[in-house]
C-alpha cells in the first residue's frame, strides 16, 4: 500500500514541479497585462488575482477538462478525449493563450510519453502528430495521472496545483515578488485549490468553457503589449 502510494507520489511531484519543462514557464495567460498596467503590483493583488483566475477560468476550462478526460479514461471512451481536446482549443478565444496551451500540451505529451509511457498516451501523441488532435496539457495530465492509478480528485487537484505553482513562479519573475512571498501565496492558495476541485466535481460538460470577460480581454490585449516577458 505504502509502496503504491509512493509510486504515484514521486511522478506527481515531478509533473507539478514548476521547473518541469512543459513550457508553462513562458506563459502568463493574461496576467502580464495586469502587471504592466499596475493592476497587479505585489503579493496581495497577485494572490487575489490568482484566486479569481482559478475560480473564474481554470475551473471551467482546463480543470473541468482534466476531470472529464479522467472520467472518459475510466469509462474506456478514448474518443471523447478528442472531443475534449477540440473543445479546449475552440473555446479559447484569445489566440496567444490558445497557441500557448497547444504548445505546452504538445511538449508535455511528448515528454511524458518518454517519462511515463502508456498506450493511451502514445495514441494521443500519434493523434497530435497526425493533426487529429491539438495537444492539451489538461488531457496529458489526466492520461499520466490515470496511468499512475491516482484518484480522480488527486489528479484534478494536482493539475490545478501545477498550473498555480507555475503562475506563481512566473509572477515572482514578472512582478517581481520575493521567493518567500511566492511560497507564502502557494500555501495560502491551497484551500482554494481544494474548493476548486469540489466545484469541478459538481459541474457538467454544459458548464465547459464559461469565462469571465475581463480576463479574456486581458489575454487578447497581451498580444498588443510592446515589451513582453511572456508569450501570453
Amino acid at each position, binding site marked *: 500500500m505504502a509502496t503504491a502510494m509512493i509510486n504515484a507520489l514521486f511522478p506527481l511531484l515531478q509533473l507539478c514541479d514548476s521547473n518541469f519543462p512543459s513550457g508553462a514557464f513562458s506563459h502568463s495567460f493574461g496576467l502580464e497585462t495586469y502587471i504592466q498596467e499596475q493592476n497587479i503590483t505585489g503579493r496581495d493583488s497577485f494572490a487575489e488575482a490568482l484566486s479569481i483566475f482559478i475560480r473564474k477560468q481554470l475551473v*471551467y476550462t482546463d480543470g473541468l477538462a482534466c476531470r472529464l478526460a479522467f472520467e472518459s479514461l475510466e469509462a474506456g471512451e478514448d474518443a471523447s478525449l478528442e472531443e475534449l481536446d477540440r473543445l479546449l482549443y475552440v473555446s479559447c*478565444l484569445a489566440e496567444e493563450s490558445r497557441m500557448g496551451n497547444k504548445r505546452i500540451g504538445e511538449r508535455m505529451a511528448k515528454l511524458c510519453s518518454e517519462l511515463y509511457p502508456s498506450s493511451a498516451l502514445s495514441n494521443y501523441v500519434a493523434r497530435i502528430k497526425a493533426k487529429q488532435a491539438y495537444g492539451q496539457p489538461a488531457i496529458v495530465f489526466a492520461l499520466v495521472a490515470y496511468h499512475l492509478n491516482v484518484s480522480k480528485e488527486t489528479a484534478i487537484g494536482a493539475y490545478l496545483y501545477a498550473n498555480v505553482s507555475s503562475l506563481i513562479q512566473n509572477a515572482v519573475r514578472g512582478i517581481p515578488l520575493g521567493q518567500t512571498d511566492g511560497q507564502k501565496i502557494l500555501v495560502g492558495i491551497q484551500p482554494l485549490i481544494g474548493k476548486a476541485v469540489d466545484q469541478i466535481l459538481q459541474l457538467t460538460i454544459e458548464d465547459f468553457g464559461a469565462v469571465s470577460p475581463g480576463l479574456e480581454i486581458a489575454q487578447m490585449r497581451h498580444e498588443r503589449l510592446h515589451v513582453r516577458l511572456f508569450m501570453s
Partner: protein
Amino acid sequence: MAKKERSVNRIGVMTHIGLLELTAAKKHSRTIISSCYYEGALKITRPVYLEKDSPSIYLIHVGGGYVDGDVYRTNLALEEGAELTVTTQSSTKVYKTPKQPVCQYTDIVLGKGSVLEYLPDPLIAYEGARFIQETDVTISEGSSFFYSDIITPGWAEDGRLFRYDWIRSKLKVFKKDKLVLLDHLLLEPDEGLGGIMQMEGYTHVGTFLILHSKADKRFIDSMYELLSELKGDVQFGLSRLPEDGAILRILARSSGSIETMISYAHEYARRELLGKDFFSWRKY
C-alpha cells in the same frame, strides 16, 4: 395567446412562447425571403430592401419583455449565395424569473457563399433575471457571418448594478459537423463581478464576431488600429479565432459606447470583407 402559453409552461409542459422560422434564398441576383413562419410572441417586419439586392428584417417581440419560463426559438436558414441582415426592433428585456430561467435558442444555417449580418439590440437583464441564450451556427464554404451581442444590467429599485441572478450565453459554430468555435460567457454576480478579471469596473459587455475567409492577421491588425483611435470609456480585446475570423470583446459603462465601437468594426468589416458600403438600419 402568449399569456395562455405562459400559464401552460408554469405547470411544466414544454412549449414555445415564441417561434420564428425563416429561409432566405437567392433568386437571380436578388435575395428573397422564401419562407417564413412565426407564432406566439415573435414576429418579423416585412423585409425592407435598404440595399438593392439584399433584404433586412427586424425581429419583433410583441410581449414587451421576457418573463419567467419563456422559451424562444428562432431558426434562420440562408440558402446558397443568399445575403440577409437581421436586427431587432428594440432591446430585449428580461424580467425577474422566480421559477424558471428564460431561454432563447437560435439556430442559424448558412449555405455556401451566403452572408448573414445578425446584429440585435442590447439585452437588458433586470433584477432577479436568469437568462440562457444558446446560438448554434453552421457555416459552409465561403459563407460570411457577422454577429453582435450586448449585455446590459437593467435598472434595479435600489440603484445597485448587477441585480440579475445570472446570464449564460453560448455561441457554437459548426463546420462540416465539427465544432470550430465555442464562445461561452457566464455572468454571475458575486462580490467580485465588478472587479479585476471579471468586469474590471465596467458594467456592460459587448461582442462582435466576424467569420470570413479573408479576415486574416493583416485585416485584424488594421481593424485594431482603427478601433484604438476611438476615444471612449471602454476596454476591448480583439483576437484571431481558430476558424478564419476575429472576435471583438468590449467592456463599457453604456450600451452606446459599445454600439459605437461595434458599428465602426461592422462598417470596416463590411467594406474590407464584403465590399459593401456603410449601412444604416434607419431604426430611429
